[in-house]
């Protein structure tokens, strides 16, 4: 029973740490319009 409690506690702690790591940082927003177009390079020479 004691081992089970410890395992559950470890799982909860790991979940909290993972959630904190996941939430830190910027989420970003998918591009709302436009897209990627091939880059046209005008050679100077």
């Amino acid at each position, binding site marked *: 029973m004691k081992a089970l409690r410890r395992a559950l506690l470890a799982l909860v702690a790991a979940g909290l740490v993972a959630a904190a790591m996941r939430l830190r*940082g*910027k989420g*970003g927003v*998918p591009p709302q319009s*436009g897209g990627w*177009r*091939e*880059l046209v*390079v005008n*050679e100077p020479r």
Partner: protein
Amino acid sequence: MRVGVLGAGAVGTRAVRQLVASPNVEVVLVDPDGARAQRVATALGRQVSVAPTSAAMAGVRVVVLAQPAGHVAEATALIDRGVAVVSACDSPEDAAELLALDARAIGAGVPVVVGAGFSPGLSCLLARFASRSFDVVDEVYVAKHGTGGPACARQHHDSLAGTSLSWRVDGWLSRPAGSGRELCWFPEPVGGRDCYRAETAEPLLLHDAFPEATRIAARTSATRRDRLTSRLPMMRPPHAEGGLGAVRVELRGPRLGAREIEVLGAIDRPAIGAGAVAAVVALEVLAGAFPSGAYGLADPRLPTEHLLAELARRGVKAARFTGTGGM
């Protein structure tokens, strides 16, 4: 024209392939594993010969360093022999030490091109190209996704466990690598990836090329497992060749009085892209288009447009993000 290539791994082999596809170019290949070098030479034709060491490469005016990190000793010896160096290094230590060879390279009258690969390399070329349309570049952000050969995979693994450097206004900011998650959008089909601070060479090279920029940072894409295991030894041997990779460069600054953002990117297998960049740069060095000194590919004196056009002819094509909305 004879070009030396050190390293017959994923990048070195692709560089040799690109070089022998160019007219009047012979390649001398050196690898610690002589049998591997011989296999590559046999596969790629009579234009490729094998030498036991870089000192034994006769008649070579430029050498591509495509072996795993630790390019400085080899580069120093080559500079002292009056041989130009094109280093495909991606480690910040290598980049810093190679940039410090600037005076030595100028004294010898040879160029030392630092970070001539996919990222850094193509990313630096894109940053310089994008900068042409700004009055001043204030901010440069680079992100990359994917790895090339085994050495690149090890570098990626280590880069998530070290210290990330970014330039902020007037000094370097050290942050733990693997922190600072940001969703970055690469050209399709790579698309959106979670990217993190990493110990990469790009901020050093970009700050050298854009001293006026107040913010410079680089991120690399990683999975949760990458981050979790980054401080441990690699659990299993790295892959021989990674999948599709991408680079993304975002520049910000004033243009005609308005604040603008320019986003460029490219996709390719990183080792193939790196080999193409290293080969194209080596050919331009032979053509005398590069000044003496040590610098990265974002240097303003380089023929950036010509290099990008030549890479596009070889299948390494860049893209621009057009449109509005969050990136």
